[in-house]
């Protein structure tokens, strides 16, 4: 048992230590919308209170268990893994609702943990969403290794011993629980300082004595500190869908549900006089009268706020407090004790997995490297296989190989990425597409013996087909042994502001205004923004109590869990039923189950995770290759594209990369003309360059200057030259950081990887300190000068995990080249596939279409006579496509698919597909009759021009469709012969506007082109002509805003991109100007003015003024992609 040292009290002397106390029933934010503190906060508070251990018992939830265990480890508190379950004792006496009990179940050992997970899983999977309920009999035979605290306050009202019937029900409950938990049952009593708490505790104490069951005090905190009470009140309101003013008794009536230490609990629970602590009021009256002349002692035990306690106390209350520490002492289980194992891979013929793996790798090596493979490759493969063997990971590689094999068999494009591309084994198994030997990649970045941690393989899957792969994994390994990882969605600024406004009862419009005042980001930032003018701008008085409360609420919600969703790709497999390792629950998507753990939680117990990620670009490439084959008869193989095609690189160097994987963003486009990639490795660098790591480490500009020969290539230490020569002396990749540590500080590869992890995204200060100490010592021992050592340390800490691993960049660079190749040589197919893979990438469909038109692609509008649901290719008009491959068929034209017509959902899609399968549409009447579409769908199709072939003239077609869509007027309707009518045809501008309104894109031109006379009059230049404006001159450009960006690394600077009929214009808004013009800059169509800045071929305009434009009252629904 851990004791606490006494604390000095004012006035001198040292008070006797209170009995050790351990809180055994704390709740965190993972009791969704009930707990108001994160596990880390609770752990930190427990340490501050000197608590030796703490049990986290969220309601039917272990989602916070790993974070809690980690946080406890950091602060020196023993974590107790637990959960609260609710059980139904049977029907009520009157046959009504069942009597329910709340049990805090604490894991004594690993078996208990597995049983607890099993119970939580069963309850979560059986019940509907919300708080589940388990029948008590389901606990039979599943309680070994679990300690049980009966939480009487949280149990149903039928078991309260204040009445005879309640006492009988309580006795029955205790008897049944004692049978399930012999010697492992305690009654947990709570006293939160409410007027009735004393009476309730007294009756339970009497019952415990009578039944001979021990009791233990708990405070069952819902938050760490008293000030967090407001957050809990807010969460309560959100849970019940009421405002604070309406909540009334739903809120806890005081702030006593915070984590209390031994001293506070002793003040509450010490029965200094002995005897009953909580006599009923009647007894108080009686005893008070009897004792009124007997002396100064209080006649009953609930103790004063600042009592003078006896130096040592053996009262029942203090013994019960000490009992909590004894209970905690029994809970020896730690999550690190788990030993999750993969299911054994069913080797054909029953051989050993390692041998089977070797056979597959050797076969793959012959295919990849030639037969026989070279000595270097063979040595690397041997090394990797031996490491895999020693770590017992053959099954893992075989599972991943099996998934890839399934995908290939099904024609689904997949490609491994991330650190797996550092492995020759993965390359030989076909999981990755990059040769790590050829690129000299560091295997230890992927797998290290000393790390004793599982490797991480990320597999990108064509996103449209990803679900098939996921269901294959479920089917292959069984739903009991496979589940996806969850993602805890936590409160951020806007969500916090909206929920705070909701519970304060502010009108929706006010909530919208407040939300508009805050940027995307954390709740703390949002509160600061509101305090610094946002409240007033939204029309609230900052001094009003509710305004101040709003800020407190928003701050308090920072990072609390809000709900749980499916992780983008994490899958976990287990030989043991997975629900016994981590609780599993239903996901909102059908046929999906998820773990209660986040992906970051899997490392501690050593789970192996398979990341099966959806990637739109693979869908695009898959479709693109198919279209090229179908339209031109050219069979392209991704693995065998013509390498280093100069025209492809010319296009990339000109930043003509809309739609190209990874290098289409504005930042990448700005860099491309400076880097001027000419080889595959240049693309690898380009992918890695625009990342937070290199940006924050101030490595981008040195690299660009060296690349252009504007500064010499130098090295901090001559020993770094072999490591950094390929990146001109500037470290850009994670592996380079590791190699620097190996070379200059004498780290082993495993140590270097530990360094990378310690400096990773979720940094541990303690580990950082340790690694830095080792680095400093290592650098000194290797003779590195102190000033150089300092610089080395500086850039290692800056980018250790914010940059890409080189292998990952290489994997992505393959897709960069492939997509650029398609764009360059097969633009219609590229555009068609890109549009069909939407939503994905950086640009809206409208921008993609305009870009395609600028590249000579013939884009045809949506037409019911010929359009499919997806975009398709048709024989082109015969015009020569620029730089067409010799001998290739003439380029096809792109037909926009019906999927882009606004408002047509899946049901319309199915109906249209079914109708078209029966034959092409012949007339308006045919469409109305066979498609089964409703009038609104038909109307929007007509407005979009989709009847052009069947009934020329959009307005005439709409007139006809309206008549047909209204249907038969009935037998009594007057038959009125109609004269043929003809409406005035739409002007080109009207057609473009109608296109934007109905499809969000237009094949008929750019809307800004129609504003050109007005823009000319106002002195605006075309975006394309900005290149001719001298640096330092002022220039105006008018256009649609297609992108607003405020990257976290840009310190408040906003980047805006305008699009006109000639291309893009890039503007930069400094923070003060952005703030001044924030309302104007929200408009979809802008006229911007600024000072032209030029760096080589790259032109940016430093914003000075802005005005919104309109199209003479006509609306263009611009589709800006706004990024933080």
């Amino acid at each position: 048992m851990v004791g606490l040292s006494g604390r000095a009290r004012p006035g001198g002397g040292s008070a006797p230590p209170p009995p050790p106390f351990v809180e055994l029933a704390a709740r965190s934010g993972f009791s969704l919308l009930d707990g108001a503190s994160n596990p880390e906060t609770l752990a930190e508070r427990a340490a501050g209170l000197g608590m030796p251990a703490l049990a986290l018992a969220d309601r039917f939830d272990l989602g916070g268990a790993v974070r809690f265990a980690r946080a406890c480890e950091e602060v020196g508190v023993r974590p107790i893994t637990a959960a609260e379950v609710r059980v139904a004792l049977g029907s009520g006496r009157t046959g009504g609702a069942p009597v329910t009990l709340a049990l805090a179940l604490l894991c004594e050992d690993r078996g208990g943990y597995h049983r607890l997970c099993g119970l939580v899983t069963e309850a979560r999977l059986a019940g509907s969403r919300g708080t589940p309920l388990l029948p008590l009999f389901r606990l039979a035979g599943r309680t070994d290794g679990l300690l049980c605290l009966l939480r009487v306050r949280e149990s149903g009202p039928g078991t309260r011993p204040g009445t005879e019937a309640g006492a009988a029900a309580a006795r029955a409950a205790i008897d049944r629980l004692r049978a399930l938990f012999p010697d492992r049952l305690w009654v947990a009593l709570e006293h939160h300082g409410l007027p009735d708490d004393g009476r309730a505790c007294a009756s339970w104490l009497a019952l415990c004595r009578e039944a001979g069951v021990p009791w233990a005090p708990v405070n069952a905190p819902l938050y760490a500190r008293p000030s967090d009470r407001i957050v809990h009140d807010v969460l309560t309101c959100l849970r019940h869908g009421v405002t604070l003013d309406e909540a009334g008794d739903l809120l806890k009536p005081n702030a006593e549900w915070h984590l209390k230490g031994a001293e506070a609990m002793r003040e509450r629970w010490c029965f200094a006089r002995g005897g009953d602590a909580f006599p009923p009021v009647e007894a108080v009256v009686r005893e008070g009268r009897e004792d009124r002349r007997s002396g100064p002692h209080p006649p009953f035990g609930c103790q004063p706020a600042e009592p003078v306690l006896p130096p040592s106390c053996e009262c029942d209350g203090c013994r019960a407090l000490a009992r909590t520490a004894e209970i905690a002492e029994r809970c020896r289980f730690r999550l690190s004790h788990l030993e999750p194992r993969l299911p054994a891979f069913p080797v054909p013929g029953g051989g050993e997995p390692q041998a089977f793996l070797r056979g597959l790798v050797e076969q793959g090596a012959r295919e990849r490297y030639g037969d026989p493979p070279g000595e270097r490759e063979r040595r690397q493969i041997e090394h990797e296989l031996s490491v895999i063997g020693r770590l017992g990971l053959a099954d893992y590689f075989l599972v991943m190989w099996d998934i890839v094999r399934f995908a290939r068999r099904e024609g689904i494009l997949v490609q491994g990425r991330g650190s797996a591309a550092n492995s020759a084994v993965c390359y030989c198994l076909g999981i990755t597409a990059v040769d790590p030997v050829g690129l000299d990649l560091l295997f230890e970045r992927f797998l290290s013996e000393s790390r004793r941690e599982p490797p991480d393989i990320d597999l990108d899957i064509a996103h449209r087909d990803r679900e098939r792969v996921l269901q294959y994994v479920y089917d292959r390994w069984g739903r009991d042994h496979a589940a996806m990882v969850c993602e805890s969605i936590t409160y951020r600024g806007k969500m916090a502001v909206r929920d705070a406004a909701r519970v304060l009862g502010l009108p929706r419009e006010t909530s919208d205004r407040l939300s508009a005042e805050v940027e995307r980001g954390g709740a703390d930032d949002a509160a600061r923004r509101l305090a610094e003018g946002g409240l007033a701008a939204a029309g609230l008085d900052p001094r009003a109590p509710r305004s101040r409360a709003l800020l407190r609420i928003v701050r308090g919600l920072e990072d609390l869990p809000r709900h749980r969703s499916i992780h983008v790709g994490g899958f976990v497999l287990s030989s043991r039923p997975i629900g016994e390792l981590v609780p599993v629950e239903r996901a909102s998507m059908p046929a999906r189950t998820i773990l209660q753990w986040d992906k970051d939680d899997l490392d501690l117990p050593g789970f192996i995770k398979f990341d099966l990620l959806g990637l739109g670009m693979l869908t695009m490439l898959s479709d693109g290759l198919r279209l090229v084959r179908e339209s031109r008869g050219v069979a392209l193989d991704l693995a065998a594209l013509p390498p280093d095609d100069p025209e492809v690189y010319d296009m990339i160097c000109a930043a003509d990369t809309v739609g190209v994987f990874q290098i289409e963003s504005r930042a990448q486009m700005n860099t491309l003309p400076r880097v001027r990639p000419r080889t595959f490795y240049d693309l690898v660098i380009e992918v890695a360059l625009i990342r937070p790591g290199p940006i924050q480490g101030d490595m981008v500009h040195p690299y660009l200057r060296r690349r252009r020969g504007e500064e010499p290539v130098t090295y901090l230490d001559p020993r770094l030259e072999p490591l950094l020569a390929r990146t001109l002396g500037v470290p850009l990749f994670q592996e380079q950081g590791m190699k620097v540590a190996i070379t200059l500080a004498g780290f082993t590869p495993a140590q270097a990887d530990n360094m990378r992890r310690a400096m990773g995204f979720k940094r541990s200060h303690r580990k950082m300190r340790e690694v830095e100490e080792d680095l400093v010592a290592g650098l000194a021992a290797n003779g590195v000068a102190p000033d150089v050592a300092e610089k080395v340390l500086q850039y290692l800490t800056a980018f250790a995990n914010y940059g890409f691993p080189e292998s990952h960049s290489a994997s992505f660079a393959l897709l960069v080249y492939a997509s650029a190749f398609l764009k360059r040589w097969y633009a219609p197919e590229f555009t068609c596939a890109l549009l069909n893979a939407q939503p994905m990438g950086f640009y809206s469909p409208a921008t993609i279409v305009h870009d395609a038109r600028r590249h000579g692609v013939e884009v045809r509008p949506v037409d019911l006579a010929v359009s499919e649901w997806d975009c398709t290719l048709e024989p082109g008009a015969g015009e020569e496509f620029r730089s067409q491959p010799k001998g290739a068929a003439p380029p096809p034209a792109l037909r926009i698919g019906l999927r882009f017509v606004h408002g047509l959902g899946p049901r319309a899609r199915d109906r249209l597909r079914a109708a078209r399968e029966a034959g092409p549409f012949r007339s308006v009447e045919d469409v109305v009759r066979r498609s089964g579409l409703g009038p609104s769908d038909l109307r929007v199709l007509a407005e979009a021009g989709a009847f052009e072939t069947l009934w020329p003239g959009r307005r005439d077609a709409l007139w006809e469709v309206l008549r047909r869509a209204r249907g038969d007027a009935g037998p009594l309707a007057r038959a009125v012969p109609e004269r043929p009518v003809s409406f005035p045809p739409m002007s080109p501008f009207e057609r473009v506007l109608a296109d934007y309104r109905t499809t969000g894109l237009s094949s008929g031109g750019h809307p800004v082109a129609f504003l050109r006379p007005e823009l000319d009059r106002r002195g605006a230049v075309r975006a394309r002509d900005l290149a001719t404006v001298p640096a330092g001159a002022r220039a105006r450009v008018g256009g649609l805003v297609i992108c607003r960006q405020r990257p976290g690394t840009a310190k408040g600077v906003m980047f805006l991109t305008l699009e006109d009929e000639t291309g893009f214009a890039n503007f930069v808004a400094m923070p003060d100007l952005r703030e001044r013009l924030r309302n104007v800059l929200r408009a979809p169509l802008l006229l911007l003015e600024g000072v032209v800045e030029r760096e080589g071929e790259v032109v940016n305009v430093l914003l000075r003024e802005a005005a919104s434009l309109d199209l003479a009252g006509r609306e263009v629904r611009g589709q800006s992609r706004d990024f933080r």
Partner: protein
Amino acid sequence: MSRPFPARVASVRFTTDGAMDGAAGAARAAAILLAASPRVAAAGAGLCRADARGWERRGGEAALARALRASASSAGLAVTGVGIADVPVAADAAALLAAERGGGPVIVPPGSAARFLAPFPLAALPLPAHLLETLRALGLRHAGELAARPREELEARFGPDGLRAHRLARGEDDRPFRALCPDAPPAAELDLDPPADSLEPLLFVLRHLLARVCADLADLGRGAVRLDLEMALEDGTRRTAALVPARPTRRDGLLHDLGRAALERAGDGTGRLAAPVAGLAVRVVGVAALEARQGDLFRAEWRDPMAAAGVLSRIRARLGEEAVVWPAPRSDPRPESRNAWRPVEMGSGAWPEVAPPPSAAEDAGAREVPGALHLLPEPEPVRVRTEAGRPRELWDGSGCREVAAVEGPERLSGDWWKDPWRREYFRLCTTGGELLWAFREVRRDGALRWWLHGWWD
């Protein structure tokens, strides 16, 4: 009351900021314009209409426009335009045009509404948004283009909406005119000569008056929410009593009972009046639809709800307006605020219902906030001497009491988002054997105050 629109109508557009916002603002504006025209109707945000008939004898329609502007101006209502035409749709458009021009009123000559409307954009017609959007998509921009379309074709495509749009575009608008000021509510009065000095003749007259009023209410299809019974005394003064039934009614028997109670209160208790009454009047001052709820034979409360309402009305008439109250439990942790008696709102038609405050089973523990056995209606301030934070002596109006024993504290707090409060309750046993319930609270200024809140027998 709804009537077809008059042959000439004036539309008044006004700015809608502040109190004149929305439909409520339009109603307020209509009330202001009553000074210029006896029949005025609110017509939506920023728009009112007035009956423009008969102004040819009072200076012409331009004079009406001036009068409307003048009455608006005197009440601070900013009129932007006035238009006058045969039908509302044309008058509204004329007012819009007047607002755009910023000058005097636009008066559309009789019989030329269609011609006047033709060049107006379709948005000037009160059409549903989806219809407007579709007509625009067809390239129809102006009312005249719509009016030129064959009626049958529009009906074939848009049904009744299309027909209505077509009529409006042609200046045919038969929307009802809902005047702000309805016809005067039913009333009846009778002079008594000689004046009555006893109750009996008054009750006879009252029955007669109420029968007339109730007949008028029947014509209206309404019931009375409240009636004023006015007595003109011989000395020239007047006394008024309100008759408020529990539900809207036109049952003259019940109303007579209420009237009798009112008259008896005015008497001396022996059947004679305090002063001779020279005239009696009954005026309905509020009407409402009669309730027509479906009953249930097997539910006790449906046996005779009107009888129950009658009893309540009579009790209230005899014992005063706040004599009938109902308990309203409140969801507030402060013991003195957990219950309240609320007077029944007579005449509203709303029946008192005792709804429990919101709570949830899982939070049931939070509701258990029992007080002392006897709770003071409001906590009373006391002075307390403490030792180590615990009460030792307590002074109130009856002197000093020594505290022999203390239990507590119990803590309650709340309303942190608007008006925070925090209390610590103690159960005190005095040396005299009294058991008291007191609390201390920290006020906003930091001062600590003690209150006595209850006691045990």
